[in-house]
């Protein structure tokens, strides 16, 4: 397993946002993380990304327990997060955004040409054909193109696990399809993808496995091929579905 979370817990003061969450993601697969608002999806992501410390449990990467204390630790382990609100600078161009914080240097000067070449190679390796001019400011791109840049930024760093937080939330139909295709391509290239979404159509279109969070607990992890939409909806809304999910005694009640 590339990434394994065991018994992960996180509290904000008296509120237990995540309790005893188990999740495993392997290279080459897209794992969707679903759950209602406040189920703890974003908190889970931030724990893995090193933005929040964890209060219990363990994060294991390649079978080795890791202590992730900051975004840099996560990046060093090959974990990259693409945030919902697009962490791009509108005034910088595509290349500048892709390399922000990790600029290629030639002595004390920026090596812009090398960065531009590398950016072009990365985008073409992802079969991105929608972005023609790498030197246009990101402000002039469409939502789908911006999301593509954000994802490419995560891929550029030889990352192994890419976490996408609602990447299609603000996109139209055609642009959503572009981004979903890109996500599939990441997994096909051997990356692990953790994909967070509210949209079950998108989830079923792209995911290999579906993990449903319910009030900070992992209700169930299903193979997408065996699951139905109604099952997943039940898991999201009530934490169980038939024999799947959390037991009646733990249904929302905290002990």
């Amino acid at each position, binding site marked *: 397993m590339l990434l394994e979370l065991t018994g992960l817990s996180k509290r904000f003061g008296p509120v237990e946002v995540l309790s005893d969450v188990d999740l495993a993601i392997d290279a080459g697969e897209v794992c969707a993380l679903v759950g209602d608002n406040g189920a703890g999806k974003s908190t889970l992501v931030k724990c893995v990304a090193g933005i929040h410390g964890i209060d219990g449990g363990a994060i294991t990467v390649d079978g080795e327990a890791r202590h992730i204390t900051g975004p840099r630790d996560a990046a060093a382990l090959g974990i990259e997060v693409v945030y919902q609100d697009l962490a791009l600078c*509108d005034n910088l161009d595509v290349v500048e955004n892709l390399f922000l914080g990790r600029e290629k240097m030639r002595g004390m000067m920026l090596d812009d040409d090398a960065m531009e070449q590398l950016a072009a190679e990365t985008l073409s390796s992802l079969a991105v054909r929608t972005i023609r001019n790498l030197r246009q400011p990101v402000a002039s791109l469409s939502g789908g193109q911006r999301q593509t840049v954000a994802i490419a930024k995560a891929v550029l760093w030889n990352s192994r696990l890419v976490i996408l937080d609602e990447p299609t939330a603000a996109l139209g139909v055609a642009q959503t399809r572009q981004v979903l295709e890109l996500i599939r391509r990441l997994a096909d290239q051997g990356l692990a993808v953790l994909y967070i979404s509210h949209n079950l159509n998108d989830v079923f279109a792209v995911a290999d496995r579906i993990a449903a969070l319910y009030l900070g607990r992992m209700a169930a992890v299903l193979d997408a091929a065996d699951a139905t939409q109604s099952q997943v909806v039940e898991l999201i809304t009530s934490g169980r579905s038939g024999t799947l999910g959390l037991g009646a005694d733990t249904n929302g009640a905290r002990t």
Partner: protein
Amino acid sequence: MSTTAQANDAETRPGAGTEPGAVRAVADHVRGYWAEVRSGEVGALPAVAGIIALCVFFGISQPVFLSVGNLANLFGQGAAVACIAMGLVFVLVIGEIDLSAGFASGVCAAIMAVILTDWGMPWPLAIAAAIATGVVIGLLLGTLVVKLGIPSFVVTLAAFLAFQGIVLMILEEGSNITIHNETVKAVAGGNLERWQGWTLLVLTIAAYAALQLNRWRRRVARSLVHEPLAVVVARVASLGALLTATVFLLNLERSANPQIISLTGVPVVIVLLGVLFAVWTFVLHRTRFGRHLYAVGGNREAAVRAGVNVDRVRIAAFVICSGMAAIGGIVAASRAASVDPNTGGSNVLLLSVGAAVIGGASLFGGKGTVRAALLGGAVVAIINNGMGLMGLSAGVRFGVTGAVLLLAAGVDAMSRGRGKLFGRH
């Protein structure tokens, strides 16, 4: 068979070195630039257009405006404001403001004057002390804004008042200190020898051409999108022509009574502005720090997530701003050959902010260049100089300068809206 097909192919392929291809490449480049302008990326265009329009207007209404003597005069008049404006660009780029830059320059100038005249110390020490004072002021302002989270508007407004007081205290309740040191006076008042001007011109053009061609060659070698060579050559040639004309004019005799005192050569202050321009342009566009400045101004949260040390970048911007204000103060003191409680006061700050904004720096952050500050500084200097020649009162001059600043800020706000409007599709 195949060779003829290849030959045909090469002939018909656009941009393969044939004349129509080269022309088309240039035309494409021009069209691309025009599309950028239309989408709100006006850059230096309003400032350049303003300079030309103002020169034509004042040149017609006051012929003396276009005299060589007045040209040299313009640089001296505008230099202090241009220095402060260059520094302000750094603060504007990160989306902050420094209202205290004017009086910070006054404090630094006063310290220099005291060390130089009252204590009789050597000039390098006095200038170093003035710049060091600017750096300390910037550190203080930056720390208050960044570490304590007080809005820069408030911090620097408080400093605006406090520095005014400090100048008064240093100058002992409003006396003025005369500067006798010839070296310091030469900063704003001295001229180069004729041959020095020409040598500098040749070196400057050679350096610029080398940089431009080298960059073009590197991009071609990596087969990246590059400008047509003709555009690069045209840019080098036009800048070279402009600089050559300037040096030629400034090397003419411009004294009213050449028999008594000869006045020729490129003013030293132009060299100072040129060096500062080159250094800060390099820092803004060719270093990691410069890239991070723009990132912080564009989206601070994104910069944090990308691992940029945002606090350090922001404090550094304030340090550069106040440091440049110190240099502006030295230039102002040098020009007046004295320091009084009004050095860096009055409208200096507003003219500096105006210069940066007129040149294309955005008050909303994320946008601005050192070149913008220089061009905007030229606009401000020309307005003041021209209206002075027309004999208009200070009241009218303030009013007009204010209106121009408002106009520039309006263009800034509108081009921002336009960029948004045309950006998304």
